[in-house]
């Protein structure tokens, strides 16, 4: 098993400027603060559906996506808000999504962070919205990176899955196909201990998820997912490997999910003290604040300034999102196909103007004439 912590020839993060390293803290703080704002909005019932937190996992999302270039394409999972923000998703978009606004990125069609923006390199931000069936984004990203290879583009793909998704057929087929095709793809397995209520030992008999790399014939790397620089180092190594044409890497990031599957989940299945221990001893922001003070000589004022900027940005975003309108009901009918662009309205709805269900009757039909009179 290769390990990200065993890199001898200098760490990739050694090449990050002090400014870039402080940026890592900004993204992690923004992620956490934005989710806390969402909790408030959820309690005010302004979040229409469920709320998914990544508390305690901010480092693995932010540090890994930080290793990508703008032209690269990433596909997040439900606990990768941090990765999406790094890739260019804005707090306004996230808030509008959760609040099901008409001008949300998916115009009210999809929920929470299920949205994306892809297209020409340099024009768009390069992330693809996930769907709920787990593992499905691995084959999709195999195809995305296959297109990079076919067109000779200098681009890399990164897809996130959780420990649970490694049990799906889609994960297996996707990573295997990408491996055979030597696609420039990084598959990040975030091992946060639980898939909903199921602990990892009921998910796999493998000792480590990274061990699965051997079976697929791909590079396997593992890192402490709560150490943002270690996450960056290991992912950057995988991204460079892909960009150099060597193919797929399976990266296992070991972290811990401190909140339930979603906001409604009371985590009754978690052993007593476990969450508190991770919060006290292994919080990714606390750990990185220590690094910033010790290695970057970050001052209290510098840190407070970042925190204030984050709060200001979220306040502004909340005001904008809150002021946005909700979708018009009939907009539900558009966009299933390119052609036709719009589906027929339901004739039994008051809004319907369509008369395709006609009452045209042939002459001489039935007991009564069309005007209701007896024949």
């Amino acid at each position, binding site marked *: 098993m290769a390990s990200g912590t065993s890199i001898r020839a200098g760490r990739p993060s050694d090449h990050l400027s002090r400014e870039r390293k402080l940026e890592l803290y900004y993204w992690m703080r923004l992620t956490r603060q934005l989710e806390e704002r969402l909790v408030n909005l959820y309690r005010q019932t302004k979040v229409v559906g469920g709320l998914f937190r990544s508390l305690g996992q901010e480092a693995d999302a932010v540090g890994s996506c930080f290793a990508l270039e703008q032209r690269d394409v990433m596909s997040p999972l439900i606990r990768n808000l941090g990765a999406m923000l790094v890739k260019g998703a804005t707090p306004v978009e996230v808030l509008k999504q959760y609040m099901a606004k008409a001008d949300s990125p*998916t115009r009210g*069609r*999809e929920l929470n962070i*299920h*949205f*994306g923006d*892809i297209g020409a390199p340099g024009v768009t931000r390069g992330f*693809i*919205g996930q*769907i*709920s*069936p787990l593992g*499905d984004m*691995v*084959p*999709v*990203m*195999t*195809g*995305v*990176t*296959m*297109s*990079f290879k*076919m067109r000779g583009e200098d681009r890399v793909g990164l897809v996130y899955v959780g420990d649970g998704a490694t049990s799906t*057929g*889609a994960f297996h*087929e*996707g990573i*295997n*196909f990408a491996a*055979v*095709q030597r696609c420039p793809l990084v598959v990040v397995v975030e091992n946060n201990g639980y898939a909903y209520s199921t602990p990892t030992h009921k998910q796999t008999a493998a000792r480590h998820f990274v061990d699965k790399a051997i079976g697929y014939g791909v590079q396997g790397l593992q890192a402490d997912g709560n150490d943002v620089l270690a996450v960056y180092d290991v992912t950057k190594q995988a991204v460079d490997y892909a960009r150099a044409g060597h193919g797929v890497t399976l990266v296992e990031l070991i972290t811990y999910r401190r909140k339930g599957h979603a906001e409604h989940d009371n985590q009754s299945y978690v052993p007593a003290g476990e969450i508190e221990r991770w919060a006290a001893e292994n919080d990714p922001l606390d750990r990185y604040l220590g690094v910033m003070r010790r290695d970057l000589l970050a001052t209290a004022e510098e840190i407070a300034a970042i925190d204030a900027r984050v709060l200001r940005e979220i306040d502004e975003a909340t005001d904008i999102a809150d002021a946005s309108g909700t979708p018009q009901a009939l907009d539900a009918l558009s*966009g*299933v*196909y*390119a*052609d*036709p662009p719009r*589906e027929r309205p339901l004739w039994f709805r008051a809004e319907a103007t369509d008369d*395709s*269900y*006609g009452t*045209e*009757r*042939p002459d001489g*039909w*039935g007991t009564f004439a069309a005007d209701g009179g007896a024949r």
Partner: protein
Amino acid sequence: MAEITYLEAIRQGLFEEMARDDNVFCMGQDIGAFGGAFKVTEGLMARFGEQRVIDSPISEIALVGAAAGAAHMGLRPVVEMQFIDFIANAYDMLTNYVATARYRASLPCPMVVRGPSGGYVRGGPFHSQNPEAGFLHTPGLKIVYPATASDAKGLLKSAIRDEDCVLFFEHKYLYRRVKDVMPAGDHTVPLGLARVAREGSDISIVTYASTVWKALEAAEQMQTEDGISVEVIDLRSLAPMDEAAIYRTVKKTNRLLVVHEDTRTGGIAGEITARVSETCFEWLDAPVLRVTAADIPLPYAPALEDYVLPQTTDIVRALRRLAAY
């Protein structure tokens, strides 16, 4: 110009579209050097290379998922299911991912999933299926199922050029049994347009794929033996479905028989019957009848398969009942 088979017409369509557009590429099992289980892709790899004719692992989920990803990036993948029965393995990817992509995320999925379908070939339960009804139920997918060689080519070319995912069902019984002279030039057939396979005035049959030919045989027999004129409509596209063509023929003959090779319950004939009932109730002189396969997994032995699948004699019997109603 010489006649070519339904299979050769599909092969020609693939060649022409790959030559016309560099973004078109094929993926599937054994489709490259081997040319595919039925040789539909024979010669494709020699002409276009391994980058555009990709031999894949036995992974239907990955094939459909990768096609979607490549399609998002502007390519136009054509995926072969070695037998269409195996499309069930990719049901999640097609219905949850591909079919919803444009609607939920404005993600285009211009891709084709094609493969040999249908029975009458002693293929047994897993090499004979007609799974189109399951996908007709899913908004976001388009479905075509040609009966003639000319339509096979023209519809495939249109499917490849369409901006959404098209499931392209090919009938393996017809592969080498039906032939056409291909229209000259860039021959395309628009999706969503039915074809009048035979004009008639007394009873209508609405059908598609292999049973178009059985309907035509039955129509001929009715004309000769009973003096009854039967109109046969070949739907060609199931989604979008040419409702206007169905209503037109019903209003013309006032009697409708719907025929398909797929099983009966929850089948497409039921959907057509419902639409005709809602829209053409006053025009009907008899109940809409269905001739379909029995609700049974398709058995292997000739005596069993022939019993389960619709035959020309079944259609004649149903037509006589409608004529006598």
